[in-house]
């Protein structure tokens, strides 16, 4: 009996795929590579939810280049070796437009398979070198790369005119890499306008942070960069104030949490933190969320909006080019044309990274984080765009 069902299932599948073959002339195939199974499947599915939403949206409007868009999905489970075979399948199917992959490692090995035979846009691979090493001219991404916030912090440090910076981190993966990136950016500034006077890891959950704050005071730093979360960040903010240290505190998204303000109280006032913009407020985003909720029980996940924007920018560039195979023309449009997406107007820089203010600087004012206004400030020179910490 099970054999019967297996045969039946095989028949159904062959009927379905032959149906797809017949319909080949009318659809435009776009590949999706990412984690649909395994322990990182939530990330992959979050990407897929966004891409499917964007595909449905464009199909409802009549499709792309006059054809309905069809998504060809391959699972890579975020595993670099599975990503190689997933990419091989998509490549041998002749696809020139790929949305994916999910994880940085899998994306790297998939890119070596595509070998510049397709436009690839990822909405969740964040590792710096993917775009910075210049080996994949047709690779783009909508997520900010790992060191985005450090770059923003360095910009801010320049803008505030700091001369001496102390950098502390909580020894976590998150905090340390953030601190290392910021330090690397500062060191690579041409003319060395900023000096790093202290760079240390801090043991978390201590009974007192007085000693390390004394060290900050002794270093005469005018700015303290904190790579870590709000719990220890708030203790450091309080200690700074109690010890009468005037150095300004700059954190990242680990600090840009209302819990920080609650815990640090008055000591939070004037603290800077970089953080992600909230995309979910726009009307377009609310429609997307409502659509997602009506179709799926699962959460839409972190990468939903990045994935929608990736698909939207790709569709726009392909439509302008007029075909799906002229990679250089599509790349030109991705780089040069600003497209309205769910994340707002976006385009890509020469590396393939998205341009747009998706991380912003916030500052605590009267007990809440408010966006810190742009002032006439020297922007970070392009030369300092790719540090190797």
């Amino acid at each position, binding site marked *: 009996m099970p054999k019967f069902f297996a045969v039946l299932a095989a028949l159904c599948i062959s009927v379905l795929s032959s149906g797809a073959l017949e319909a080949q002339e009318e659809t435009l195939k776009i590949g999706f590579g990412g984690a649909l199974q395994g322990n990182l499947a939530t990330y992959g599915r979050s990407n897929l939810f966004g891409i499917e939403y964007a595909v449905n949206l464009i199909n409802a409007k009549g499709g792309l280049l006059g054809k309905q868009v069809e998504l060809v999905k391959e699972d890579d489970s975020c595993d670099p070796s599975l990503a190689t075979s997933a990419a091989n399948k998509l490549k041998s199917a002749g696809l020139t437009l790929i949305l994916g992959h999910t994880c940085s490692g899998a994306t790297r090995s998939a890119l070596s398979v595509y070998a510049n035979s397709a436009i690839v846009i990822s909405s969740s691979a964040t590792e710096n070198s993917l775009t910075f090493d210049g080996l994949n001219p047709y690779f783009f991404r909508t997520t900010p790369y790992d060191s985005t916030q450090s770059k923003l912090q360095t910009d801010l440090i320049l803008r505030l005119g700091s001369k001496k910076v102390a950098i502390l981190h909580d020894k976590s993966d998150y905090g340390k890499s953030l601190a290392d990136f910021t330090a690397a950016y500062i060191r690579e500034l041409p003319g060395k306008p900023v000096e790093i006077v202290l760079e240390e890891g801090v043991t978390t959950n201590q009974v007192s942070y007085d000693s390390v704050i004394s*060290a900050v005071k002794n270093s005469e730093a005018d700015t303290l960069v904190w790579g870590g979360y709000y719990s220890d960040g708030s203790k450091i903010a309080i200690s700074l104030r109690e010890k009468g240290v005037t150095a300004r505190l700059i954190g990242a998204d680990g600090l840009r949490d209302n819990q920080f303000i609650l815990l640090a109280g008055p000591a939070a006032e004037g603290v800077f933190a970089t953080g992600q913009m909230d995309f979910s407020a726009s009307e377009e985003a609310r429609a997307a969320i409502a659509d997602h909720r009506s179709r799926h029980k699962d959460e839409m996940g972190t990468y939903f909006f990045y994935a929608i924007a990736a698909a939207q920018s790709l569709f726009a560039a392909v439509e302008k080019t007029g075909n799906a195979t002229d990679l250089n023309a599509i790349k030109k449009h991705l780089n040069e044309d600003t497209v309205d997406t769910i994340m707002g107007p976006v385009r890509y820089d020469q590396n393939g990274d998205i341009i747009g203010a998706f991380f912003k600087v916030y500052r605590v004012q009267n007990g809440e984080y408010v966006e810190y206004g742009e002032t006439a400030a020297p922007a970070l020179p392009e030369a300092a765009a790719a540090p190797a910490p």
Partner: protein
Amino acid sequence: MDFFLDLLVGGLTKGSIYALIALGYTMVYGIIAVINFAHGEIYMISAFTALIFGSILSSVGLAGWGLLFAVIAVSALYAAMYGWTVEKIAYKPLRGSSRLAPLISAIGMSLFLQNFVLLAQTPNYLPFPALVPDVPFPAILTRHASDTQIVIILVTAASMALLTLFIKKTRMGTAMRAVSQDLEMARLSGVDTDKIISFTFITGSVLAAVGGVLIGCGMRQIDFYIGFLAGMKAFTAAVLGGIGSVPGAVIGALILGFAESFAAGYISSSYEDVVAFAFLILILIFKPDGVMGAATTHKV
């Protein structure tokens, strides 16, 4: 020199907190040779009690020193009850069993209390009110120490003085010393050893409560996990000073506090734990029973 004094005060503050907790470990060990791992949780629970009663008492109009001491008193009372109960539930039934049994029981109690607070209160950090009043301390003090640091050091010193008086001068203190020297002999001489053991737990818990309130004032935030790390460090301090010895615990705590503070200041805060524990190893190599520990002969 300024930097040195800053670090000195920082180390003294840290050491004071460690000392208040370490005393609880060392006193209990001195009497029944059990490492009370639940002690760090008593300290954590007193911090939560202080937070709750701090907001209640300040809403009925208490402020300043009155508020601080009322909060310390209430937390101490709660901690005493917890300490007493922990002893009755986790250790008394195991008296006379193998040495390992109360140790496992202690770890179980510690996990239980942590999770109890996690479930009954919150898994999040809570802001702790500034209970230390603004005091016009002389400028010579405030140059290197914050108000909170001065209060922590003063209150700790006062608690130590009271404890020493209590152990040296009162009948109860004499009985405690007798029990720690020889439990059987003390019982034969008519000392109610069960009562003394309970009382030792209560005394240790009261000191931990003082530490809990002070650290809340210093850190300005608490969560259910603060007892673990502080308890570990205080236990280390007790071993460093010679577990079982009351002055040893204080000295061990101060050594640990200074070592951490100076390591953070002059080497790097990345290495402060490394330096502190390297100290521990060095001292234990040369004085295996700790700085003030009595050299004991072990039966083979």
